[in-house]
């Protein structure tokens, strides 16, 4: 075994993200590592590379064995020196440099000179000829045609990915390469080439850990597949004879009892489906949201419904609310009550009674430097002219701090926000309480339609329950239509009536919440469109995953 992980565990500030994960990698073996967003893949790799954030948060449990010996790397550079390479999700390439310059970045061969001995080797000239040769050798190992003299910024994405892999190969002693979503940004044909290059490398005895959401590729390429869920290793299966579908249901699956229990609370759609005009209809929506690109999405939602939007990270589910709310450039037709909505204007959407709880709590959802009262009331003040007193016959609209405070107090007790008072800075609240403030902000607008994006991400279980309960109650009390976007399938199934699954920027299918887990798994893995006609034109899939 070149690498053995034994009982790896990790907590962040008492929040357990990994527990007791063990598996082995042999030379020349390709191990697939799969799991939902937040399952712990990234943290596991950060532990392997000994990233600073791991030390800063109190280290990890368990042991890493490299070539049979236990190792504790002090920094990522130690891991690199030991012979572990990493290809990141995001390209870490210098755009203005050539492939060769990038492949040998900070490892350039140098000419010897007298000055070097006096000062430092940094003032020796680069030996560009040797650089090109070394780069070429690394590229050849991949078996692809890539010009070492080509500038990265002029390359198609596939070439960039090859450049990254070549950089890892170029290290003298590399024995294991970790590939984090290497195909996420590639077109299908590019991905094919990459997979065959990876097979070539494995044949040469280099071990690979392949992390991907594209399950078909994982099944096709890997020898063994390790499935993580909620920080635990759920399964380790040989890839042979495995289908993407099985893997997908392993990834999302939870105990059957809880599902039934939770979903019992949903009142089934008792309206007549055909007659009623949809309150929201979306046609051919596209959204340029970096990392969550939406390509072509059409769906409609009926009044009073809780509609779920799910899918794996980076497939575009988050782009949908952000596009409709005018926060990301978007196009297509969105109709509210049959009348088209002006795109690209948050104001237009808000004025038509649409509210949004953003997944980016700290970036978009909150004014971290202001108090709870401001955060809750600001949108309602700007859109609905609430909490204002007209002065001089309406010439001026004076802010009523007292009213704002009392409304804030109402929501504080309603949602059980733990704080020192309505004036407390929101930046000092915990994640769960911040999320409650975001919900209160949306409720204060008294919306017709409420978009909620990842409402339970990064908050503790108690707060999770309150958030979901509140949404459900709000929906039944006020008849507010809720569209909830989440990567937690269980959560969607527990409160939504119908759930759309997004895959590669399109709706892969819409299922009732009662559908089987396997059915969701199939849609999430995009297995439905697997048998494709060869002449079908597919756009470049170049969305970047933004899992952290």
């Amino acid at each position, binding site marked *: 075994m070149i690498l053995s992980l034994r009982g790896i565990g990790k907590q962040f500030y008492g929040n357990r993200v990994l527990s007791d994960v063990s598996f082995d990698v042999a030379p020349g073996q390709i191990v697939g590592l799969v799991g939902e967003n937040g399952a712990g893949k990234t943290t596991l790799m950060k532990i392997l590379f000994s990233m600073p954030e791991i030390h800063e948060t109190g280290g990890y449990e368990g042991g890493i064995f490299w070539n049979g010996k236990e190792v504790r790397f002090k920094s990522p550079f130690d891991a690199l020196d030991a012979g572990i390479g990493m290809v990141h999700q995001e390209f870490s390439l210098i755009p203005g440099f050539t492939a060769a310059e990038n492949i040998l970045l900070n490892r350039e061969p140098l000419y010897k000179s007298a000055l070097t001995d006096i000062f430092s080797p*940094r003032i020796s000239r680069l030996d560009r000829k040797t650089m090109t040769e070394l780069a070429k050798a690394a590229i050849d190992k991949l078996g692809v045609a890539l010009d070492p003299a080509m500038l990265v910024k002029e390359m198609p994405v596939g070439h960039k990915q090859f450049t990254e892999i070549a950089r890892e190969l170029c290290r003298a002693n590399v024995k294991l390469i970790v590939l984090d979503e290497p195909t996420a940004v590639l077109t299908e044909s590019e991905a094919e080439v990459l997979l065959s290059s990876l097979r070539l490398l494995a044949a040469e005895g280099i071990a690979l850990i392949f992390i991907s959401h594209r399950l078909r590729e994982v099944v096709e390429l890997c020898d063994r597949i390790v499935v993580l869920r909620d920080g635990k290793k759920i399964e380790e299966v040989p890839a042979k004879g495995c289908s993407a579908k099985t893997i997908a249901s392993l990834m999302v699956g939870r105990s059957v009892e809880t599902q039934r229990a939770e979903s019992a609370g949903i009142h089934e759609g008792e309206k007549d489906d055909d007659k009623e005009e949809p309150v929201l209809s979306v046609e051919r929506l596209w959204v340029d949201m970096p990392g969550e690109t939406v390509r072509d999405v059409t769906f409609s939602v009926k009044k009073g419904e809780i509609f779920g939007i799910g899918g794996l990270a980076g497939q575009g589910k988050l782009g949908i609310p952000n596009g409709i709310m005018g926060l990301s450039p978007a*196009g297509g037709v969105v109709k509210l009550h049959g009348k088209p909505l002006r795109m690209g204007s948050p104001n237009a959407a808000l004025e038509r009674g649409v509210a949004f709880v953003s997944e980016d709590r700290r970036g978009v959802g909150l004014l971290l430097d202001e108090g709870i009262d401001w955060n809750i009331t600001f949108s309602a003040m700007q859109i609905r002219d609430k909490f204002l007193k007209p002065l001089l016959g309406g010439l001026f609209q004076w802010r009523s701090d007292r009213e704002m405070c009392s409304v804030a107090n109402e929501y504080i007790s309603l949602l059980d926000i733990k704080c020192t008072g309505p004036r407390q800075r929101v930046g000092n609240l915990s994640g769960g309480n911040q999320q409650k403030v975001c919900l209160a902000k949306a409720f204060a607008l008294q919306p017709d339609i409420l978009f909620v994006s990842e409402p339970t991400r990064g908050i503790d279980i108690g707060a999770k329950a309150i958030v979901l309960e509140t949404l459900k109650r709000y929906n039944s009390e006020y008849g507010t239509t809720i569209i909830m976007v989440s990567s937690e399938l269980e959560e969607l199934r527990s409160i939504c009536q119908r759930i759309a699954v997004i895959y590669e920027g399109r709706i892969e299918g819409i299922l009732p919440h009662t559908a089987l887990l396997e059915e969701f798994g199939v849609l999430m893995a995009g297995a439905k469109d697997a048998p494709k006609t060869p002449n079908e034109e597919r*756009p470049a899939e170049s969305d970047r995953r933004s899992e952290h």
Partner: protein
Amino acid sequence: MKSSMKSRLRLFLIENAVVILFIVLIAIAIPASRLPGSFLLQEILTRLGRSSFLVIALLLPIMAGMGLNFGMVLGAMAGQIGLIFVMDWGIVGIPGLLLAMLLSLPISILLGWLCGSIMNMAKGREMVTGFILGFFMNGVYMLFALYAMGSIIPVTNPELLLSRGYGIRNVVDLESVRQALERFIPLKVWGVNIPVLNYLFIAAVSAFIVWFRKTKLGQDMRAVGQDRAVAGATGIAVERTRIIAIIISTVLAGFGQIIFLQNLGTINTTNSHEQTGMFSIASLLIGGASVTKASIPNALVGVILFHLLFLVAPMAGKNLIGSGMLGEYFRQFVSYGVIALSLVLYEWKRAAQEDDARALLRGGAGSDDGKGGTL
């Protein structure tokens, strides 16, 4: 691909807008100034020898992604301190200049290290930080020159001191080293004096820059300049590399200021250095450089264009509108304006690139129904 042709033309115009604008301006102003060609030629050759070194000193920080080094005035101060000491000790001619450069060296290194460290604390706003640091150090410099010199630091030559017995006079005469470089190798071609040694100095610093770019350190600097995070991830010492870029720039600025002042023949103790930064930066930008990209040709072309305008603007103003002051203000407007313009273009280009990158992510999908709604 009509749109790409169009966008390429747009890009070309944006990138070269400044040079084109200035060539047009000067083409109008030269005939209007009615200055004789031989006079202009002599002046330009002199000024090229006088100012180019300073402008070239700006190149490395741009390569390291730190923008226009407004902190170069720190080097200019170091150069002046070197010159003042040489005047005090009465060392004349070329040896005096070389000694002044040698004296400025440790001061420049210290100031450059300081400047680089402070800029590392203000990543992303290096330019405004360097700009204010220039003002701040000007205060320290004045404290040194006007109060410490002659009281704490011995100055033997009473002619350098203010009548109160300490502090350097407002104007220091550099008679003993005045134009020592220009006169060292006298060369006259068709009645035009050519400052050969100045040009040799400039050639030397240009060769240094060219060589430096080929070294490992130069490569690291370019990498840091393009993406700090990526460079850091491969183990390049990002902050150290940035400090080195500023130190070299500061040292070169110190030498450049000495070359500049020996040609003028006097130091204006309290404000000779103040305009150095602005003039050098304006020159470089007029030569077609930008906040992220600058070359030696940019520097040389810039010096020529800037000084041509410098020379002809007042006369052109007088002849066209009958006001010499008008031309002078116009010239100052141009110096400030070109910096403002370059900074604006830099921000625009950055915004445009971000838009393009975002649209690229989606690939071709969805846009067939035109621009349904954009921001």
